[in-house]
């Protein structure tokens, strides 16, 4: 089973699916959706099988494939996964079918076809698998940049009113970062050329290079800026709230759930092992950015009136935690950070989906346009609450495990930063619960209100006194449908994973920890005493 070329199939399958969906004739929208869903489910099955074939204690990179691609550049089409990449593939496998299910009945801007939407989604999936599975730096760069194109069209063609602006801003920010990284990639090649005699982009060979500190710092910055824009870290973050709020919900979930993780994944995979000295030298500066991001973005999140922007800002805050965990250089914190990447994808993905379902009902993204939804739509409110609680890392949800690991792992390495970061947890509770309270609790109000014939007693709902609400008109009631069966099927797997991984995260930890440990031993920090148990 392990000789099966999982990774190539995982890239080729959605790419082929995208071509099929795009080639379907006009009017076969239903068939397009079914093909897309089938392909994405098949990818999910394959990622799970790949996980089974992966030996957690075995070689660092497994399921490897390598064929020569551009011989005169020394580029190979080399794929392989370590535990970190593997869990990201699992996350892709889970989120894409969920997103396809959630987008099933989306109302697209006029003149847009569902076929194009699903074709771009599947192409994006292929690119995302490629970016995590590449073990050749050139190949990684190619996927890193090519990934922008489907996302650009998803935002630009299917997004909200300011979609043109958001799409171009997204593309240009990422492209600038990518081009800076390109310079560093070529620089690495030139160094390898002078040290090894032949230029190479193979990750394993580049890891062995002995780069002088000055050059290392420059190359580190080249990679770091690209990843910091992608992740995004403050102060490179300003594109995310626009892109996140203007993207269609499905696109937004994949954007913050997976695409942005390429940034933090890049820190771990490329910045740390390739430039260990520079990583240690720049770590304090990165930690300052991380903690500043946690607090600053949390404060901004509290100030948002647009739900999608709010969720985008919470993501920036969470990315600060992930960066903190990575640059604390301990195995617990690093493992926590990787787990955080998965958990954030699930929790924020669910939050975006539920917010999207609410927006689909009310047609407005403003928090102030909703109120008292819980009474009429308890399932929607319940899903919202679970997503929110997972986002603020309540014990019992998956995020708690990862956040706790990050904080406890960072504490003995960088205590001051860690203490400051914990403030972010308090702020998280504030922005999530305030949003929940304003939209779900309290008297019914806002865009979902409907003047009704029969007077409706509202006193039963007016529980939330702390909420900022206008007094409800007496002769009105909310007209809101609770979650449909399709929507339930979409949120249920995510909720199950959130609770499941909150209680029993060991399977993922077993995959992640050896990879993190190997990464940190590249940096030359052994981790802590407890960190080495798996090696």
């Amino acid at each position, binding site marked *: 089973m392990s000789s099966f070329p999982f990774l190539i199939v995982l890239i080729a399958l959605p790419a082929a699916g995208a071509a099929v969906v795009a080639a379907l004739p006009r009017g076969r929208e239903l068939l397009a959706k079914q093909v897309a869903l089938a392909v994405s489910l098949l990818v999910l099955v394959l990622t799970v099988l790949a996980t089974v074939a992966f030996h957690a204690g075995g070689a660092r990179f497994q399921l490897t494939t390598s064929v020569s691609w551009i011989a005169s*550049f020394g580029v190979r089409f080399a794929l392989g996964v370590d535990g970190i990449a593997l869990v990201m593939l699992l996350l892709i496998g889970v989120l894409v079918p969920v997103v396809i299910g959630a987008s099933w009945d989306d109302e697209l801007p006029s*003149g847009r076809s569902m076929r194009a939407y699903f074709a771009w989604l599947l192409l994006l999936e292929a690119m995302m698998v490629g970016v995590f599975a590449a073990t050749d730096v050139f190949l990684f760069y190619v996927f890193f940049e090519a990934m922008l194109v489907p996302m650009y069209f998803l935002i630009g063609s299917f997004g909200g009113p300011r979609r043109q602006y958001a799409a171009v801003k997204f593309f240009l920010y990422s492209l600038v970062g990518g081009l800076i990284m390109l310079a560093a990639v070529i620089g690495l090649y030139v160094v390898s*050329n002078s040290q090894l005699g032949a230029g190479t982009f193979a990750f394993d060979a580049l890891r062995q290079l002995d780069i002088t500190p000055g050059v290392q710092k420059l190359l580190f910055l080249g990679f770091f800026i690209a990843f910091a824009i992608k992740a995004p870290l403050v102060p490179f973050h300003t594109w995310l709230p626009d892109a996140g709020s203007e993207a269609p919900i499905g696109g937004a979930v994949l954007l913050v759930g997976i695409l942005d993780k390429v940034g933090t994944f890049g820190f771990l995979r490329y910045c740390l092992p390739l430039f260990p000295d520079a990583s240690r030298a720049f770590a304090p500066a990165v930690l300052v950015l991380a903690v500043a991001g946690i607090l600053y973005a949390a404060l901004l999140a509290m100030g948002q009136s647009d739900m999608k922007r709010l969720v985008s800002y919470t993501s920036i805050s969470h990315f600060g935690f992930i960066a903190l965990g990575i640059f604390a250089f301990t195995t617990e914190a690093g493992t926590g950070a990787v787990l955080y990447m998965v958990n954030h994808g699930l929790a924020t993905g669910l939050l975006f989906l539920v917010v999207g379902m609410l927006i689909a009902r009310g047609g407005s993204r403003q928090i102030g346009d909703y109120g008292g939804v819980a009474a009429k739509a308890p399932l929607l409110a319940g899903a919202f609450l679970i997503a929110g609680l997972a986002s603020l890392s309540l014990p019992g949800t998956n995020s708690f495990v990862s956040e706790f690991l990050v904080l406890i792992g960072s504490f003995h390495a960088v205590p001051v930063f860690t203490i400051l970061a914990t403030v972010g947890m308090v702020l998280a509770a504030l922005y999530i619960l305030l949003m929940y309270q304003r939209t779900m609790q309290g008297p019914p109000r806002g865009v979902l209100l409907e003047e009704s014939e029969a007077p409706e007693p509202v006193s039963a709902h007016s529980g939330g006194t702390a909420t900022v609400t206008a007094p409800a008109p007496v002769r009105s009631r909310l007209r809101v449908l609770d979650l449909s069966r399709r929507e339930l099927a979409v949120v249920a797997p995510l909720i199950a994973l959130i609770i499941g991984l909150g209680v029993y995260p060991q399977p993922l930890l077993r995959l992640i920890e050896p990879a993190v440990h190997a990464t940190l031993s590249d940096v030359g920090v052994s981790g802590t005493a407890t960190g080495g148990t798996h090696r």
Partner: protein
Amino acid sequence: MIAAPHLSLADLAPLLFVFGAACVGVLVEAFAPRESRHPVQVAVALVGTVGALVSTLFLAGAHEVTAGGALAVDGAGLFLQATIAGLGALAILLFAERSLDPARSAFVAAAAVPVGSPRDRELATSERVQTEVYPLATFAIGGMLLFVAANDLLIMFVALEVLSLPLYLISGLARRRRLLSQEAALKYFLLGAFASGFFLYGLALVYGATGSVQLRDIRAAATAGGTDVLLVLGLGLLVVGLLFKASVAPFHTWTPDVYQGAATPVTAFMAACTKVAAFGAILRLLYVGFGTSEWTWRPLIYGVAIVSMVVGAVLGLTQTDLKRMLAYSSIAHAGFLLTGVIGLGPGGTGSGLSATIFYLLAYGLSTIGIFAVLTLVRDGDGEASHLSQWAGLASRSPVTAALMSLFLLSMAGIPLTAGFTAKFAVFRAAIQAGAWPLVVVALLASAVAAFYYLRVIVLMYFSPPSVEGPTVGVPGLPTTLVLAITATATLALGIFPGAVLDIAQRAAIFVG
């Protein structure tokens, strides 16, 4: 008694094909009846260019100097000749398109008739086509083939004139907006004549300094006593003359006007083939003539590369006409190409030559493709090249928009397109030669330029279509063929560039 110089006719086959076709074309123009001229001219021009392309393939691996040391037949020269001949054939196909314009041709029926005269109005709607453009273009292609093979400054100058004079003429032959076209031709001629003057003066100074016009002797003289002021000054003037043809800033001022004024197939021809030829000559002059005294030209090329990239990227942002925008894009690309030229490397070991010739091929293909798309989108007054007219094109014609996006992404250098592979190759060559600050500037310029390429995609896909928008013509066989070839090549050179890169690498030899 004058001994006849050694002359290998087989080595001259590409030149003979094209010049032969051009001469036959002139005879056809004189003697064939009007009705049969067009198909015959197209066939003759295609036979000439394709014949040249095929004969370069047969010559592959040749490595010698012939015609008394005046012509070099070497890998790089043949690669560039094949590129010019191939792109030339594609451009001829674009010239031959008859189903897009209601008057059945993109070229004026009688160029000598004054604009606005009663006869002109009468001819504007007539289906009479004039076919002198084919022999003219074939002569220009012949000049270009000679230009990249010239191992002698005098031959290089002759080739420069042979390629330039027909170009001045055919850029004035547009059927629509004739005044703009004639103005462009005159401007191009005046500035071009000026640049030729620079080249000639430089030639004279170099001859004065070295006593020879042959690149081999110049190289020997430069290696021996490279500090000669006369020689360096002469080199500078030669390079200025060539940079003008390559539309490198600050010698670019003719480019936007000529690109806009000329008929779009002609613009495609000029943008692709002239650029290849000019860079071929620049590479040969610098690498063969001055390869051992790199310090004499490196600072100059370094500087104009930066100026060209910045001017092309920044001024391109403000353009509202697609053809002018592509003109500035070509100026920026000229800067990227010079980045590759810098990558000569110590003792000529760098990958600059192979990277630059690959870039020229990739750029030429995408450029012909993008102008071919431009000829499709029309309104009542010819081509609709104003940006605003392209709004919402994707909903009207998804295939056209997709092709345009592909070529634009290639121009912007997005991975998996030819443009990225090419950019990567030249940047690698430059960094290997230690020019990383230049590469940083190039990357920033790429990012700026990406903005205006993206703007077109945004307009086509994300903007609502305007009510009285342009129509998308149904192309005939020639344009369809061009689009299919260029789009396939743009993708293939992005996804599987290995084979062509290998060829470029093996071809990257100049005979000294």
